[in-house]
């Protein structure tokens, strides 16, 4: 009995890529566990930091008004940590899957290396934006913290991933057309 050889065997992405993806998942797990373990301490720290900067958060010193502002900021602070956990976990798997496709499909050396680099840095960097956003909320307020995280992390790293994914999609389409 003979076994037919696979026409396009999957190629494993470079080791550093796998290391980054696994590290991203490890960070997500540590982040999730820490979030649950230190929930009270984190909330207390964020609340104290916000109370120390009433002007930043628009606190007016009236409990009925301020409690809503603090509650919203604390909910978003917690959401940032949760979204970091979720995205870092997911993007680790996305990095492995997409770089494997890139390593298999992209023939040209430069294109392959650039796509893999973009997918890896973009995928690993993007979730950090949620951590940055969350950490900046107590000091800068909801909107300012979001703007900083956007320009510092989400837009550059998110764009890197999107560019790489479209590039990879284009390569795949070209290969399908060329058959």
């Amino acid at each position: 009995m003979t076994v037919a050889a696979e026409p396009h065997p999957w190629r494993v992405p470079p080791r550093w890529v796998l290391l980054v993806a696994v590290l991203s998942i490890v960070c997500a797990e540590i982040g999730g566990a820490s979030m649950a373990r230190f929930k009270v301490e984190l909330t207390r720290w964020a609340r104290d930091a916000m109370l120390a900067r009433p002007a930043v958060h628009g606190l007016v010193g009236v409990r009925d008004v301020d409690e809503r502002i603090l509650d919203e900021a604390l909910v978003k602070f917690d959401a940032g940590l949760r979204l970091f956990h979720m995205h870092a976990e997911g993007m680790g798997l996305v990095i492995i899957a997409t770089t494997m496709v890139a390593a298999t499909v992209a023939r040209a050396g430069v294109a392959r290396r650039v796509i893999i680099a973009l997918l890896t840095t973009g995928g690993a960097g993007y979730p950090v934006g949620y951590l940055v956003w969350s950490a900046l909320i107590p000091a800068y307020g909801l909107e300012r913290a979001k703007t900083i995280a956007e320009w510092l992390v989400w837009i550059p790293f998110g764009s890197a991933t999107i560019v790489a994914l479209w590039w990879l999609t284009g390569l795949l389409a070209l290969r399908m057309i060329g058959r």
Partner: protein
Amino acid sequence: MTRVMLALLATLLAAPAAAHHVGAYVPKDNAVTINFKQVKFSVQARKFDIALRLFETGALRAEMRAHAATLPAGLEDGTRAALAASDGPEVERRLMIFFAALARDLALEADRRLAEAGGTAESRAATGRKFLEAIWRYYNLVDFAVATRDNKTSVAVRLAFDEAETYVKPATGAAAPADPARLRPPLQRIAQVLSTLIEASPTHARRDS
């Protein structure tokens, strides 16, 4: 041509890259409004013993004591007496007075803050907006009770509230920018109308005859 295609691609990519999911905030009840709802639903279910226990151990009574100086005399004792007597409408009326008083005090405080000099128009509008949210959170709980007893008061508060909201809305598109200076008259109207309602509502415990 290639440059045009690249520019188009970059523009298309920028939109999804900027749309980050950061979660949505749904305002929660505070301890006072939670306790109010517990007492209200217990009374509606005619479980007065439960309502009395919830009132005596909850945040509602603690808040009544904390605001005793600005509340009509006998409000807390009268509410407890009405619960003990299984008098649902009287419990509702007293709780209406309590929340009307909370909303009135917030309107007075907001007016006082806005009268103070300093701050940009945006920051003053933001302060006004937050006060309006707090006022509505309390008043909204008893608006139905107010409307069934004194429809003119309910309409007056709603109209003043709607007017106040238009002065603190952030500028979007063709809409006029926030004008916090004009916020004071509707706030004063809310406080005055609610004061009249509170003063017109007796709070001493009713005698059974």
